[in-house]
């Protein structure tokens, strides 16, 4: 759409800018403030320059959490995106079952995050959980509070349960928007299912898939509540992802300087990655 230049449009965006600035700029400045100061007690602050940043960037604890976070996010994307796409492709396109499918699939997305954690806690508890008892019956030695492997398995399974539907719904929205004429043309040409997928469905899904990857990347990178309720970041630090580590440092140990520096590094990583996705997405859209 060709837009007209109108500087008075700023008045329309003013309420949004004010609200978001109040919520984003002031707290962000607080964080920046802490990140360059040393605090003694509650009200004494001294300039400490970039010391906290150096400390965070060199700290093995931060490297370990970052690595765990990257591994988790990579695993989530590798499982949820193909799985969600496959489910969306297999779903009926019309008829009464469509609504039923959509409503049931959207259900996990609307459950408060600590309830999600609590649900999987109940599923995985020894002797009374459905998941743990099924795995024991199958002969696995499953104990998510003791073994890092089992904890990772549970956390990933929980996230797949919680968020795959988002990918499904996005892909499904993309699929139903493809006109029937495309499929008819493919049929006349005698295209095989793979060719239909590769040359008709996939190109049409590129935009929604980018949104799906972007949202799943951001949200899995910020995961906190569900994992804290389920494993508390344990056993040991096996599932201590970045947000959990950050809250432990800031609110648990009250190390404001290092926590603030870590916040900024963390935020910058997300921002950089999201910017990359966003530019890619906008380029696709304009094509």
């Amino acid at each position, binding site marked *: 759409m060709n*837009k007209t230049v109108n500087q008075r449009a700023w008045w329309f965006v003013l309420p949004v800018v004010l609200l978001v600035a109040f919520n984003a700029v002031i707290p962000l400045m607080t964080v920046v403030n802490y990140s360059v100061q040393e605090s003694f007690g509650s009200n004494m602050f001294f300039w400490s320059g970039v010391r906290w940043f150096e400390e965070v960037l060199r700290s093995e604890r931060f490297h370990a959490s970052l690595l765990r976070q990257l591994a988790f996010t990579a695993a989530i994307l590798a499982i949820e995106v193909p799985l969600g796409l496959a489910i969306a492709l297999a779903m009926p396109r019309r008829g009464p079952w469509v609504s039923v499918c959509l409503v049931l699939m959207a259900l996990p997305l609307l459950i408060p995050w600590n309830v999600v954690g609590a649900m999987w806690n109940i599923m995985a508890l020894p002797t009374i959980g459905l998941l743990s008892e099924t795995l024991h019956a199958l002969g696995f030695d499953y104990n998510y509070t003791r073994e890092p492997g089992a904890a990772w398995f549970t956390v990933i399974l929980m996230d797949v349960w919680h968020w795959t539907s988002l990918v499904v719904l996005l892909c499904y929205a993309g699929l139903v928007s493809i006109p029937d004429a495309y499929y008819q043309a493919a049929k006349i040409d005698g295209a095989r299912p793979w060719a239909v997928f590769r040359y008709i469905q996939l190109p049409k899904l590129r935009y929604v898939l980018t949104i799906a990857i972007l949202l799943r990347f951001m949200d899995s990178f910020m995961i906190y509540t569900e994992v804290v309720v389920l494993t508390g970041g344990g056993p040991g630090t096996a599932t201590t992802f970045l947000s959990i580590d950050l809250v432990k440092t800031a609110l648990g140990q009250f190390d404001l300087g290092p926590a603030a520096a870590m916040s900024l590094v963390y935020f910058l990583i997300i921002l950089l990655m999201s910017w990359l996705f966003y530019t890619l997405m906008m380029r696709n859209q304009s094509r």
Partner: protein
Amino acid sequence: MRARYWVPTLYIVFLLLPIYWLLNMSFKTTNEILGGFSLWPHEFTLENYRVIFTDATWYNGYIASIQYVALNTVLSVAAALPAAYAFSRYRFLGDKHLFFWLLTNRMAPPAVFALPFYQLYSAVGLFDTPFAVALAHTLFNIPLAVWILEGFMSGVPKELDETAYVDGYSFWGFFIRIFIPTIAAGIGVACFFCFMFSWVELLLAKTLTAVDAKPIAALMTKTASTSGYQLGLLAAAGSLTLIPGAVVIYFVRNYIAKGFALGRV
């Protein structure tokens, strides 16, 4: 039924299993839960639900949650409407940067903002009120609402605006009487998303409340830690938090698919 339908069917069964298990626990007595594994409640009881509906600390949690979620939805969508219109219709100085800046707030991890928010809202005297949580949640809901609404608005041809002005409508007359009804579906979807993300977010909601405005889901963690391990009660409270979500999905079921693509498909 076609063969490939087993894929979504299996997936839905997988989705429903933990939900069934939660409901199952909520209808059991504490003795039965601690007694061992059972696939369905043998001594069916509504006691857990009775406790929640008669104890003020519990049901106030629901009221508090609903209050801030509703406030946040109204606030986010009302502020986002004119902004989304500006982004979809006009070019102005810094529009693209502003749009991206708004989106970056959707990317901010709540863990980064927890402590500064606590200090900010204590300083302005809103701590432990529904307003604090509602305002804090606009941080990620406004960008999202602007993004969704902008998508829907860009789908409406500009000729609609021009015809209305020719017919003698003032800007606000056009906006309220013609434009808003035209994008009603988009507004519904935006409300749905604001509701959803405000309802499920807990780190900020928990940090910004102490007693009066404590959300229901945060009360659950307290129960688990203080008064022993009352799994049945926990499960009942959890089951009740599923209801608002289910009701809201039912209302927007025909728009969910489009809404998830942020109105751009």
